[in-house]
Structures are given as C-alpha cells and as structure tokens.
C-alpha cells in the first residue's frame, strides 16, 4: 500500500477488481478497463525509469527510447506494418484529424476531394466538415440497412481529384465491419489514399495493412485495454504517404507529430497490442458465445426486438438492439444494474436520436428504442445471465407503462397514427 492507500500491484493479474454496488460494465465500445498486466508494465516508466526517450546523452534516455521502440514494434506487428510506420498520437481522434487533414492539405493543389461515410465517428465527420469550409469537396457515402457501404457506390465516388478515402474498420455503435480489403483494392487502383479509423477494429479482427492496401490507420489505446490518452497512426512508407503535420515543434515522430513521447503510455499501448494479438482468436470465440447467448436469451423472452446492423459482419463484442415501444433513456434507467449506452438522445439540446441508426434507414421511433451492449475481456458468463434477466424485467415493466405497446397489442399500427410532433 502506498500513502494514498492505493494498491501498487493488482490483486489479481488477470482481472481488474470488481467494485461492489457498481453496475455490470457493458459499454466496451465507449472504453475498456486497462488490463492489469498493462498497468503493471507501465508503472516503472513513471517513476524510476522516467527518462525522456528523446534524450540521446545518457542511459535514462536510452532505456526509455528502447521501451518506446519496442512498443512501436508491438503495434506494427498487430497490423502487419513496419515499426517505422507507426506514429504515436494522443488517441484516435488526433490520428483521424492528422490523417485526413494532413493528407488533404499536402495534396490540396492537385486533389481537393475526400470520400467518407455517413456513419463515421464524429471526429472524422467533423474534420471533413472543416475541410469543406476550407474549400474541399466531401462525398458522404450512405450505408445499407446492414450498415455496410456499397462498393459500386464507392467506386463511382472516387475520381482523379480524390485525395483520400476514409472508411472506418468497425463502427462504434453497431460493430459492423466494413470490407476493408475490397475498399483498399479500389483505392489503390484509382490512386487515392485509403485511411481507416480502426479504433474499434484493432485487436478485435485480423488486420493487415499490406493485404488490405491501407495507407493510414488510426489506433486508440483505451479501446483495447490500454491506457487513455494515447493512440497511434500508421503511415505507409512504401509507397510513401506524405502529410502536413498539425503539431509543430521538436520534430519527433519523423516530423509528423512533435512533442515528447509519454513513455509509460507508449509501453502500455504496445503491450495492449501484443496481448490482443496473442489472445484474439480465443477471445473472439468466447465473446461470440456470450453474444449469442445474450441475443438468444432476449429473443426467447421478449417479442418485438430488433438487431441493428449486420450480425455476420460484426465484431463479436457488440450488440445493438431496438426494443420496440420502449424509450431508450427510460430503459437505461430501468437497467441501472448495467452500464450501457442508448441511441436515444431525447435529453440533449438536439432531440435527434443516433445519426448512425438513422443512416441505416431506421425511423426515429425505432432509433429512440435502442440500446448498445458492448462486452469484452472482463465480461463473464454471469454478467450475461444477469444482463438478460435485468433487461427482460425492465422491458416488461416499461411495456406495461407504454401507450404504444398498448396500441400495438390492440392491433393499431403506431406509425399510422397522426402524432402532433413537437
């Protein structure tokens, strides 16, 4: 124990300690707990091994540099890249900004067009919006009801003015996996750079930047049991991808991202990648088992529930379900023993529900009734059993309160009613 009463080593190297009276965590797409093995590996780099990895004159610097380079190699290995192609950043948000803006700015005199998808993460869409204001033209590809893009539409969208195509590997709300290899082949054939936001894909599905012709890939530490505040951008060296940096300074990270590297965070991200790589096959099987059980358990006991997004082209640790006639936020309150996320946004300034679900063609009603379940490394069988019982009783309670459920039971088509929308 330290003076602060904090344990310096985890009680159990395999699982973070559970806190009593805290909901079961089913929000693994929002963030993941740092794996205790990762925390342990990071610790010495905060204290005794605190050197600046860019210090060339003494052993403190050398050992830190060696640790950072090992981490870089671990990240590269997970995606089939060379260590020299990995740039450390503060997270996937920064990586996405740097990739899209950096490439667009570098090519702006020759190519002023960007292609992306309507279901991308806000940090991609917002970067594109800003570039639009600066004179770039952006095509936002639609997705089908399964959440996947149409390759023919992508092909038609790419022109000889297209600087970069940005398509995420895995969607954060519905977990669907875009056909990266096919997209990469199209981009390569048409001479456009291919960037993929793989914050939700890395460590979850096999990725190979060469086989998939990916030129830039964004990675986030805290989605893969690593620390928050660190990520990486893969930037291809052959053929070389060039970009304009956003952060200027000492010229670290091959001049693309200045600033002293956070050695402990780099070490943490590196080990997180290595662990995911070593455990991916087994872990995917286990998670798929949990998901199948969760979905089956709910479907068996609740009528009128619908899975949003393709179930086959999907990471195993995600489910997104609409519980018809039950509002998502009310439902979240009912399942307070679970930490989940809702596609309903009746609270915030905008009354718009999830733009991702709307992009699938879901009407606002159904989008308002959705919950996202994300599970991962520390989710147990018991968590899933508890979740099923808890969700079923909350949905049944709320349906007993729902005027829409009552109408549905009476055979009234709720969508045919003239509502006074406000």
């Amino acid at each position, binding site marked *: 124990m330290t003076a602060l009463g904090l344990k310096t080593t985890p009680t159990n190297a395999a699982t973070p300690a559970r806190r009593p009276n805290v909901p079961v965590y089913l929000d693994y797409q929002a963030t993941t707990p740092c794996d205790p093995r990762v925390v342990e590996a990071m610790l010495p780099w905060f204290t005794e091994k605190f050197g600046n990895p860019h210090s060339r004159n003494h052993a403190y610097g050398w050992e830190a540099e060696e640790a950072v380079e090992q981490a870089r190699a671990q990240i590269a290995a997970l995606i089939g890249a060379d260590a020299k192609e990995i740039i450390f950043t503060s997270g996937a948000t920064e990586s996405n900004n740097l990739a899209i803006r950096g490439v667009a700015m570098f090519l702006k005199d020759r190519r002023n067009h960007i292609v992306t998808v309507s279901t991308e993460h806000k940090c991609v869409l917002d970067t594109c919006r800003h570039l639009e204001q600066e004179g770039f033209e952006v095509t936002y590809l639609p997705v089908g009801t399964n959440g996947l893009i149409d390759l023919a539409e992508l092909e038609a969208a790419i022109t000889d003015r297209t600087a970069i195509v940005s398509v995420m590997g895995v969607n954060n709300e519905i977990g669907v996996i875009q056909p990266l290899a096919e997209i990469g082949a199209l981009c390569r054939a048409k001479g456009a750079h291919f960037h993929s936001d793989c914050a939700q894909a890395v460590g979850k599905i096999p990725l190979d930047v060469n086989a998939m012709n990916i030129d830039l890939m964004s990675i986030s530490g805290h989605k893969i049991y690593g620390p928050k505040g660190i990520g990486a951008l893969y930037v291809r060296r052959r053929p070389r991808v060039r970009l304009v940096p956003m952060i200027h300074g000492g010229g670290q990270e091959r001049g693309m991202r200045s600033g002293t590297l956070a050695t402990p965070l780099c070490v943490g991200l590196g080990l997180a990648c290595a662990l995911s790589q070593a455990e991916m096959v087994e872990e995917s099987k286990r998670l798929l088992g949990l998901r199948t059980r969760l979905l089956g358990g709910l479907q068996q006991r609740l009528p009128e529930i619908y899975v949003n997004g393709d179930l086959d082209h999907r990471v195993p640790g995600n489910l997104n379900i609409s519980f018809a006639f039950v*509002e998502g*936020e009310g439902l979240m309150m009912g399942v307070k023993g679970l930490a989940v996320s809702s596609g309903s946004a009746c609270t915030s300034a905008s009354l718009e529900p999830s733009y991702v679900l709307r992009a699938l063609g879901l*009407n*606002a009603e159904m989008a308002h009734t959705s919950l996202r379940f994300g599970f991962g490394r520390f989710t147990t069988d018991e968590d899933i059993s508890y979740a099923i019982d808890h969700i079923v009783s909350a949905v049944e309670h709320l349906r007993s*309160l729902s005027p829409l459920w009552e109408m549905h039971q009476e055979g009234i088509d*709720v969508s045919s009613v003239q*509502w006074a929308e406000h």
Partner: protein
Amino acid sequence: MAYSDKVIDHYEHPRNVGSLDKEDGNVGTGLVGAPACGDVMKLQIKVSAEGIIEDAKFKTFGCGSAIASSSLVTEWVKGKTLDEAGQIKNTDIAQELALPPVKIHCSVLAEDAIKAAIADYKRKAGKDDSAAAE
C-alpha cells in the same frame, strides 16, 4: 444523468398505471407527444356527475422524468375539479420532481396531457349536452 429520488420512486413504483374506457362519456383522454420525438403520454381522467375527477390513469413512453411527471400528475388531479386540475403548471411538476433544465419538456408534456384530457372530456360532455337538447 442523476435522477432525483422522487423521479426514481415514481419510475419504480408508478401510480395509477393503466387505461380507462375511452368510449365512456365520463372519461377524458389526452394523448400527447410523438414516438419520433421519444415521448408519448396518454393521460385519462374519469369525471363524476359533480365535476370532480374521481379517477386518473396514465401510460407513458419516454424517459424516467416523463414517466414520473405523468405518474405525479395522476396523483395530483384526483379529487380536483376540472378547473383546479387545469391550473396545474409544468413548473409545479418540475419543482416537485427536481427536474434539471434538460428535462423541463417532460413536465411540459404532462401539463399538455392533463389539458388535453380535460378538453377531450369537455368536448364529449358538450356533445352529449347538445344531443340531449335535440
């Protein structure tokens, strides 16, 4: 979002859940909101010959605050005259439930629902009157 204890209590133990016969001449029904907006409230009142609300029922599709607002309103209107019930303000509801600013519209919806139920009752009663006069 942290809910107040009163909201949680109404959410977990909603009062007066259910439906009254909307064809009954003594029953007024208010149905407000829209599924696309994420909230729908149905509030019904049963009015005695003396013009007193003797029963009230609700069903709500919405967030916890919307459920609590409508549950609370059914408690409040019982025993009141139509005029008294018509004077319930959303601010009273919001205050009683300690609703945060983003949840004020849930209380507005509850006020709308009670007004709509009263209007529906009066419309029906009016029709009944004119039918009797013929």
